[in-house]
């Protein structure tokens, strides 16, 4: 983890986000930015480790968004889990919308390839069902 700056989040981005969260007259010392930089990086590693452990138990190889949300819930980060669960739903809505737009535009472009595009549509439906299934599984009572 201490391999240098390459394995840390960029301190410029961290500093900018910190300034956004404080009143205008506030000042931030350089060492405080560095500490938050390391903490945020450790946050990613900590949650990733928990998500990876869940994947290993369920014999899956790909860490997905649900694993990340579930890991945050398990680690007591309830506010983050609630926000990320909703963020993941919105993210997937955006992806499906983009995919459907691409599919419709491609279908309009070439009529001969409509058959294969139809196959793509079927795939989209499968992903939508899978997403709904996963969201159904993870929809527990929100803890505020």
């Amino acid at each position, binding site marked *: *983890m201490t391999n240098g700056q390459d394995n840390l989040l960029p301190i410029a981005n961290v500093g900018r986000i910190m300034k956004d969260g404080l009143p205008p007259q506030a000042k931030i010392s350089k060492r405080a930015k560095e500490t938050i930089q390391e903490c945020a990086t450790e946050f990613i590693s900590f949650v990733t480790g928990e998500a990876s452990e869940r994947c290993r138990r369920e014999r899956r*190889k*790909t*860490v997905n968004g649900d694993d990340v949300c579930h890991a945050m819930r398990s680690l007591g980060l309830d506010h983050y889990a609630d926000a990320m669960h*909703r963020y993941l739903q919105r993210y997937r809505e955006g992806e499906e919308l983009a995919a459907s737009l691409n599919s419709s535009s491609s279908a309009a472009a070439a009529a001969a390839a409509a058959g294969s595009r139809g196959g793509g549509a079927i795939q989209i439906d499968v992903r939508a069902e899978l997403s709904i299934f996963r969201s159904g599984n993870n929809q527990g009572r929100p803890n505020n």
Partner: protein
Amino acid sequence: MESKSAYGGAIGVWTPMRESWGSASAVTSARPFVTNNVIPAIWSRIAPSLPPSPLPRRPRSALAHCRASPASVSPSARASPTPPSPRSPPHQHQQHAIQQVQQLQQQQKEQLQAFWADQMAEVEQMTEFKLPNLPLARIKKIMKADEDVKMIAGEAPALFAKACEMFILDMTLRSWQHTEEGRRRTLQRSDVEAVIKKTDIFDFLVDIITDDKMKDDGMGSQAASMVSPYTSGGMGFSFDLYPNQHHLAYMWPPQEQQEQWPPQEQQEQKQKQDSDGGGQDE
């Protein structure tokens, strides 16, 4: 009354009662008196013993854990009490200090609640084309540092970009609360350390502040390498890779302690120290 007269007829049976009561008229009134007195006594006993129906409470340990966190704030808050003035009695002064601490804790709690409400609102209003505030490739690299991680779905780094932004804002807000408790205007590393120590969900960060203290001994080369980019950059992060960054604004309640802010001379001294030491002095 007829039944009573019938009982009165049997004078032989009631003779000792007459003698105990002392008069014949007392015997007549004694019976209804006893019958009337017993029932109210019974009711008076039953009425207060009825337990009030308790409100249904949710036995969630998570909520208890969350609510327990404000309690951990009080030790650090009380660690910096106001020096007692010789004029006011100590008892009144203690009560006043306790009220101030409670008000401060309530304000801090409300700030954090407002922060999370803003975050949830932002998630609902987000647009799909918004650029992340943190680079996804770097996040993926950090995730890959874990040897157990084999494959990462595309949505995971995007999720972490948002989660890290919330984490940085959360840590910064809590650290700033500690800065304000010390009546300062510059967020220091010690403020971040205090937040890590007193917040349960940040226990996984305890090793970072410990390791960094050990690293302080051998920071010569790192400090030398770090000085040049800051000097060339002029301490201004002009590198603007993410121009569509969303700007968050908070409604900061007026702090009573700000009225007791140190005079301008001390501020100037602090600014000089910051410019000289660059925040290295804690």
